[in-house]
């Protein structure tokens, strides 16, 4: 998969390219808005990572131009400002997501994966947390590469949580996801499924933990204690 990185800081661009390459992405690096403008019209990229502060102008102008041409290219904006106005104008100009510097590379990778996994885009690889893996195509969970048998609803909850690893999934979202619009849902139904899933995973030796954020939702993360 080919990515376009527009970043005027050579050092950062080089570091990001290396790591993106290690993660399996071919990356072209450009340093000015003008170059970026030309490149996106001649080459098809899977996504663009765009720094807003460029030497020859605002990265947002590149973004606006792309959206004016109704190009659906997923764009992840990198900004050093992160102020309220910058964020609002960034998203209004058509950014799909943004990251405020200094960001963790894992965060950039996760956001890129999320962008590339969107409808119409190529599906990514399997989801992985510690020794727990989930194949999004076969909808099969693995612990230490051994396939696990889970009920359909447990599988649905696990996939939902794993897609948002280290981020909170609201209780409402879990509810909608497993019960759809079927209506009558017992108030503790979600808790019941989470409890079962948690028990199954820990019994089978998965080094993950499903945290309950009371009043908010659930979060799956690597179990550091284990």
């Amino acid at each position, binding site marked *: 998969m080919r990515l376009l990185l527009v970043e005027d*800081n050579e*050092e*950062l661009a080089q*570091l*990001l390219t290396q*790591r993106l390459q290690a993660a399996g992405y071919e990356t072209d690096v450009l340093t000015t808005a003008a170059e970026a403008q030309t490149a996106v019209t001649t080459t098809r990229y899977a996504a663009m990572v765009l720094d807003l*502060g460029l030497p020859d102008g605002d990265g947002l102008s590149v973004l606006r131009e792309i959206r004016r041409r109704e190009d659906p290219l997923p764009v992840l904006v990198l900004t*050093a*400002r*992160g*102020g*309220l*106005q910058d964020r609002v104008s960034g998203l209004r100009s058509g950014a799909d997501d943004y990251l*405020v*510097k*200094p*960001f*963790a*590379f894992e965060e950039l990778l996760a956001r890129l994966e999320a962008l590339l996994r969107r409808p119409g885009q190529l599906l990514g690889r399997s989801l992985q947390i510690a020794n727990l893996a989930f194949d999004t195509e076969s909808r099969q969970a693995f612990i230490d590469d051994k396939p696990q048998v889970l009920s359909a609803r447990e599988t649905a909850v696990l996939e939902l949580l794993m897609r948002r690893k*280290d*981020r*909170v999934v*609201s209780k409402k979202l879990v509810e909608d996801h497993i019960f759809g619009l079927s209506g009558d849902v017992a108030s503790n139904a979600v808790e019941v499924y989470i409890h079962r899933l948690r028990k199954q995973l820990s019994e089978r030796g998965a080094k993950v933990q499903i*945290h309950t*954020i*009371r*009043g*908010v*939702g659930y*979060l799956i*993360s690597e179990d550091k204690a284990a």
Partner: protein
Amino acid sequence: MISFRSIFSRIIFLHVIALVITAIFMPLVLYYFFKWAANDLHDQAMREQAELVAHYLVVRPDGSWTLELPPALHDIYSQAVGRYAYAVLDDSGRVLFSSLKDRSPIFSADPRSSDVAYLETRRGNAAVSGVSLVKEMDGRSVWVQVGEDLAHRDVIIDDIVADFFKRVGWITLPMLLFLLAIDIVIFRRALRPLLNASEMAKKINPNRTDVRLPPEEIPKEILPLVQAVNQALDRLEAGFRMQREFTADAAHELRTPLTILRSRVDTLADRGVSKALHQDIEGMARIISQLLDIAELESFSIDPHEKADLRTICAEVAEFAAPLALAKGKNIALSGSDAPVWVNGNPEMLSRAIRNLVENAINYAPPGTTVEIVVEGSGMVRVLDEGPGIKEEERALIFQRFWRRDRRRTGNAGLGLSIVQRIADTHAATISVENRPTGGANFSLSFARAG
């Protein structure tokens, strides 16, 4: 000279003085003119009478003079009336005829230099005014003198003057009041745009440097002042903008190297060192973003119509903060109202305030405990922790910029609570802190519910 602070009172004061002076002098001048006109009339009448008397003066063939006045004319000069008198003198000054009993001349001095002279003299207590006219007859000159006792005339003149004041003089008072009223109206109208400009000027503060005084309708005389003020504001705004941009630029310049540093640290072989360095970078990143928050807050002004749902904001903050809390072995929970709680305010700013309170609580809570966010229907948010609490004497200090209990701890510049305080101030919200019965801190932020 009395000094007035107000132009309005100054002009009114001067105007009143001018009106009073006019009101006094105008009748005096008129009175003088009346008197002058009356005297002129009198002089003319006297001259005509003298001519008339001369008309009846005849020279006999023997050279002697006769004066035979018709009875009507004779009566005017009778002693009984006493108002008019005549005398005729020859060129040697001898009295030929006189209406007076003692046959004396009316005017003793006899100016022979001119044909006619208007004279005044005193006879007993009375002032007599009249004319002395030279007439040439048969080659000889005679002086015909006619006089009038002024005691009689003054009565009439005084009547006229008194009458004038009675009929016309009263007009000065309403005129004076009318002019005052006009003054007030003119000034009110002239000052209204200035009052509007002052209202605009009141709105100017470091967060609202875009306001300018409206030059429309400002009186021409004051326009240069308004323009100069606006130009001064332009320069100030440019200065403020430069300062704000500097902060934003500084953040940019710091954040990119920090990102590079972070990426390099990731590649370190020693995971322990890498983890410790990561924490230091997190701390620096947090201080930079707080400085940026403060810079942004300095130029933030709230839209009074903006509304925010505390329940949604707190849920978002809890989602955002949960991974941070879990990474430190702590948890977070949300409770209270399940229904939206609408308050007046900017959602992003309220979110930052609550996020700072929550991050602060996470920092001080012991591992294994839960930081609790409580949303109350009254428009209040509480953030509860099970940390050491805040000592009574520290409660006023913790909201000051750069205040830290333990200055040895790094990655904490003591900015978080000052940001909360500043956001509370811009939203007219109250912030309070107390200790829970169990010992932890209880921060509460109370907002005005949206109507």
